[in-house]
């Protein structure tokens, strides 16, 4: 469901999403089919399949070491899969896909001795982009990121924050159709985190397809339209975020309160209580028991500051599906559309 208030701000984007939602026909632009990759006998990625719909911000989420980076590397043709394939508009990916992608790996760096301008031109040329047009674009980005006066500086002479900005520019300078960001917020200072968020939203408005992996559920929840959740190399959840949340939230409530709710622990209608600091997530055994829960809280003199029925965070969903680190063997794939 798309909010009418947002239409003013991002008219073109939301209209297109809305049409897609109405028709229910998200065209699958990029398909990952049954990817398997082992290292030294250990399966890092085990039969991973998902589809990235056109015009979406797609989140590949899971904890560290879940297999996200290996999956992305196979999508980028950096690793060859043991089996499986990645399909772009019906054909297997190749160099053509690489030229259309802007990729920001989790572990990133640039040539220290190379000058800013040379670096930008080099990476653009590797993507097949040269000439006045790309130079003009590079100048625009440098001005926008307050780096224009440093264009002849060596990379090693820039601050870490500025190097991170340069890394973003090299990722998007060649005007890619796809932007793949592997743990994009790791190691970023707050200023650059915001900057990157703005860039992602801007790229989204421009109609780019953005795929990003993260172990930070909060970011994924705020930015993604679709997600695939990976744990121990397997897909455990896939679908549109709104549908996933609506499915999982039916037995859920989030609560902000004053008082002692320990009495709830032994209440037969409660399945699980998760404390997230400021808020507490409560999972009920049956659907539509939220009103009864609210009544129980009031009857026990709990001061309720906020009660949000049918709300669940992505993190709660993840914990429910993947469990803790030592409780992982029995995860099974769920599909929001199922």
């Amino acid at each position, binding site marked *: 469901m798309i909010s009418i208030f947002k239409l003013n701000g991002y008219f073109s984007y939301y209209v297109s999403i809305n049409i897609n939602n109405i028709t229910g026909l998200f065209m699958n632009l990029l398909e990952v089919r049954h990817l398997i990759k082992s290292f030294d006998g250990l399966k890092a990625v085990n039969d991973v399949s998902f589809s990235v719909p056109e015009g979406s911000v797609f989140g590949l989420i899971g904890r560290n070491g879940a297999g996200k980076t290996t999956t992305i590397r196979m999508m*980028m043709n950096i690793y060859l899969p043991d089996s499986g394939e990645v399909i772009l508009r019906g054909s297997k990916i190749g160099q053509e896909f690489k030229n259309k992608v802007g990729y920001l*790996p989790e572990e*990133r*760096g640039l040539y220290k001795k190379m000058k800013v301008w040379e670096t930008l031109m080099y990476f653009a040329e*590797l993507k*097949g982009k040269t000439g006045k047009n790309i130079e003009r674009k590079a100048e625009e980005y440098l001005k926008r990121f307050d780096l224009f006066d440093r264009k002849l500086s060596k990379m090693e002479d820039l601050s870490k924050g500025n190097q991170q900005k340069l890394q973003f520019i090299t990722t998007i300078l060649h005007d890619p159709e796809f932007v793949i960001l592997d743990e994009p917020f790791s190691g970023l200072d707050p200023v650059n985190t915001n900057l990157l968020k703005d860039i992602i939203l801007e790229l989204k408005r421009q109609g780019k397809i953005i795929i990003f992996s993260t172990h930070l559920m909060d970011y994924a929840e705020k930015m993604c339209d679709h997600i695939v959740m990976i744990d121990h190399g397997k897909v455990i959840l896939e679908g549109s975020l709104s549908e996933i949340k609506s499915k999982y939230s039916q037995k859920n409530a989030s609560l902000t309160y004053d008082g002692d709710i320990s009495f709830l622990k032994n209440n037969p209608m409660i399945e699980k209580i998760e404390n997230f600091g400021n808020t507490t997530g409560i999972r009920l055994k049956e659907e539509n028991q939220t009103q009864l829960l609210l009544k129980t809280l009031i009857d026990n003199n709990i001061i309720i500051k906020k009660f949000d029925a049918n709300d669940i965070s992505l993190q709660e969903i993840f914990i429910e599906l993947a469990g803790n680190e030592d409780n992982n063997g029995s995860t099974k794939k769920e599909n929001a559309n199922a």
Partner: protein
Amino acid sequence: MLNKRVLTVIKRELREKLISKAFIVMTLIVPGLIFVLLGVQSLLMTSEQKNLKVEIISENQQLTPLIQNELLNSDLSKDKKYIFSFSTLSKDEFKKYLDSQKQNIIDEKLGGIVYIPSSALKDKRIDYYSKSSQNMSLFKDLDGPINKVLIDDYFSSKTLSEEDLSFARTSVDFTGYKVSKEGDIKEEGYGNLILAYLLTFLLYFGIIMIGQMTMQSVIEEKGSKIVEVILSSISPTELMTGKILGAAITGVIQMAIWLSPVILLMSTTIFILPKELLFSISSTVIIYTFINFFIGLLTFIGLFAMLGAIFDNPQDASSGTLPVMMLILIPFFIALSMMENPNRPIALIASYFPFASIIVMPARLTLVGVQVWNLVIATIINIATFIAIFPIAGKIYRVGLLRTGKKPKWSEIIKWLKYNY
């Protein structure tokens, strides 16, 4: 294989390497370094201890003044290389005298004692007593003068003319003539020997220097995590090809700078070299040297790039370079051994042996000359070696690039060849 992306990598490699301080400094320093090395070697060979006290004792009283006269008038005494003293002692007296001088010899107050028994007049056998008994330099120095006295004495009773004696005393004097395939027979100085030395050293330095630079560059790309950004645009094979070609072109430019004085001397008559230093090489040698060097660089740079991808830091890499260094060092020493005798069988084999041919064949070509078809065979062997090694080095490079963690063992690296990367 050669596409725009590879050309982009080649351009970057050339720009980075050609203007790097290391390249400029080494290009200028290496020729000087080679001359210094050659100079030090000849200096070590010529510079001997001065004022070495040597006693010459002869059993035959008549020989003593003759030897004294010969040695004191020789350059050995004039240059103060030795301080000679002369005496005559019978065998028994000499034994006692030797006992009394033992401590002086051990304390190096006395360099050595040469004893010439009377029997030497027949069999030319003389004895030398010293702390280090095998003093080749002294044997060589004393051989001429003592031999002359012995010859004079031997023939004095045989009524030979002064002319006959003079002939008998003169040693054999070799003059080298080079017989080439073209049928020319030309007197040749040391020029070609020096050129062979020069080519061997330059090939050795060139391959190691450019190889190490490439290895460092790969380590930098791997260590500073640039490599994954690059691999999102091009394949590892394209990256490796670009890096190898860029580095090999740099190496050839460097070699051209180093060899430009030789080419200049060949192509002009403005500079006149002394007769002893004249060298005769054809343009075939120069062309072959460059083709051979280029193929050699491709092969060895491929191996150095592979090493760079295996290791995470320069310390680990430098200890891991030994196997590749051996492939360069062994042929280098074989090539140097050719300077003494270019027709050694090992040199012949090495000039066609994979890896070794690259360093040995140019030296052989300069010293003995070989036919064009020999060069063609050597080139085919070198190209075949490169073709055989490139996929292996490429695979290890591809696997190693994105691997981090502890230093891998060679047994693990061999397993990488089976990986599906």
